[in-house]
């Protein structure tokens, strides 16, 4: 591959070359004119610069700033390094931190253990030759195209204590007006603990369809002869799925797992639009944002929370890269 005289090669072929191995290595480009090389350089260079400048530079910035006490006032020369002090304060002197951390974990757990398997189940059912499968798919997928901010609004329509669907439904069914009367009505989004569960239901409403579509695509690509072979061998439906189909879906499983984790860490819009992430709806993302937009802008402190978020997300990201691109590099 690398001896090819044509000016292209799959990326893997070039993966190991080091920059200064001498002239011989450059032969690969020899058929390209200098102008072509410049074109290629710009085609990659401009987008790469934008990406690195606006994403990786600030990421490094977050890490550096997390070790400083800076309130954003004054120039960069006012930055003072204070070691791990922000982290110590975060863990011991900042009451919102642990509840937010816990909420992120609960979010992740609920998505991983309930919403994702439900999406998978719907995909498996809808993958069969069922009449009207496209209609069912469309209905389940519809919430996915809505923004989480809109989902937050729609959650209000369902949960609001005197105007929402649930409480009005209870009144209609029981005939007792206490369900919507102020004072006795259940405030689904205003009661700490309960409100987070209700938010998870609303967010899960959207996540299930997302997972379903990813798995449906995967299931379509599973060779049907595998299923036939399993059936001939006497496997029942459950065995066929878990022993034959599921392992073949490994690439999709990776994507779904990573999407689920990352979405759980990114969650922000829905709680922010409901009540700015207060009163039991705190998430790490909200704490970081409040430290910038809030009155007291504690840059170093906000960065420390961002670094915690980075540390949690880096594992799944590396796992994903290894699984999707590791194969390529071989």
């Amino acid at each position, binding site marked *: 591959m690398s001896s090819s005289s044509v000016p292209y090669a799959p990326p893997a072929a070039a993966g190991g070359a080091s920059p200064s191995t001498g002239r011989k290595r450059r032969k690969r480009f020899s058929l390209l004119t200098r102008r072509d090389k410049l074109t290629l350089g710009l085609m990659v260079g401009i987008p790469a610069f934008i990406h690195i400048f606006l994403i990786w530079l600030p990421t490094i910035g977050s890490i550096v700033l997390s070790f400083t006490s800076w309130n954003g006032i004054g120039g960069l020369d006012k930055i003072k390094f204070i070691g791990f002090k922000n982290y110590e304060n975060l863990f011991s002197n900042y009451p919102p931190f642990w509840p937010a951390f816990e909420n992120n974990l609960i979010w992740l757990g609920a998505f991983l253990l309930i919403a994702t398997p439900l999406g998978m189940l719907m995909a498996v059912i809808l993958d069969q030759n069922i009449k009207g499968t496209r209609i069912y798919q469309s209905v389940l997928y519809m919430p996915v195209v809505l923004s989480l*901010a809109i989902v937050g609004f729609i959650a209000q329509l369902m949960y609001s204590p005197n105007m929402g669907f649930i409480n009005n439904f209870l009144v209609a069914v029981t005939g007792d007006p206490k369900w919507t009367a102020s004072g006795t009505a259940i405030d689904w989004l205003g009661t700490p603990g309960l409100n987070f569960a209700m938010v998870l239901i609303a967010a899960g409403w959207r996540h299930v369809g997302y997972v379903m579509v990813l798995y449906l695509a995967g299931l379509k690509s599973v060779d049907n002869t595998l299923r036939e072979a399993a059936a001939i061998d006497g496997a029942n439906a459950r065995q066929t799925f878990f022993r034959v189909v599921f392992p073949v879906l490994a690439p999709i499983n990776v994507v779904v797992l990573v999407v689920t984790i990352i979405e759980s860490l990114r969650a922000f819009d829905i709680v922010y639009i409901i009540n700015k992430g207060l009163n039991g709806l705190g998430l790490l993302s909200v704490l970081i944002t409040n430290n910038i937009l809030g009155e007291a802008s504690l840059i170093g402190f906000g960065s420390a929370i961002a670094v915690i978020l980075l540390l949690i997300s880096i594992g799944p990201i590396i796992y994903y890269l290894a699984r999707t691109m590791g194969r390529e590099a071989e």
Partner: protein
Amino acid sequence: MTPTPAPLGSRQVVTGKRQRPHYFTHAFLIVVSLIWFLPLGWAVYTSLRPYGDTGGNPRGYFSIGGAYNFNNFVNAWNQADLPLHFLQTALVVVPALILILTFSSMVAVAVSRYSFKFNLALLMLFTAGNLLPQQVVIVPLFRLYLALPMFAPLSDNGIWYDQLFGIVMIHLAFQLGFCTFVLSNYFKQIPKEINEAAFVDGASVWRTYRSVLLPLARPALAALATLEFTWIYNDFFWGILLLRTGDKFPVTSALNNLSGQFFTDNNLLAAGSLIVALPTLIVYFALQKHFVAGLTLGSTKG
């Protein structure tokens, strides 16, 4: 017909011929679909009724009767300045889509069709960057936006902060990762002889990209455009963080300022939500194929 697996949990034996109709499956699917449809259906129903027939009325919201009209839609449209915010959305979405697809296709062609040292590393960097939670970068990014200068047509205050231009740039930076990943997988499947032919014909790298490879990638570009439209349209966070002037907020971010105004009147809230949701729903129903293709291009062919 090929034997199809029975639903999970059923003990039915899989034997093509003897399979009974899926009564249980259909019942289950209908119940789930109804539950899934309920919130949107409820929003539509509520939005068509005047507040007086529902909120300030002993019948409450779960009732039939009274007037049905589009007054709530008219009120939401006017009170919330929705035309203005839709314009801001267009000013973000259109340039962002063009830049994202242009730049990501350029990188994708370079890393998948030409061999050079950093292409795998670059692809990894882009993909990892796309997966980072936004909040990881926002503290320094916010300061950066306050400090970076920008000239007049693109910025009316001389910096990146509080400018639609800044919103376009951050979407570009983040979405480059996803689109480059998808497009480079797509380009890898195109036979390399096409490059050879173009090369023999004396086409430059730019011409090969512009006139040969890009047209071939049309299906992938269409799928990505559909998907990215929805994602950028639906963005709430960047607007909230990087804009301050209320009039500049794209429509999804503008919802944040409307919440106080809407929450006292669920009928208005329902109408407002539906108006804002409508463009993505239309795109979804009109371009469902592209939409799903975009999502799955990134996942199955990785």
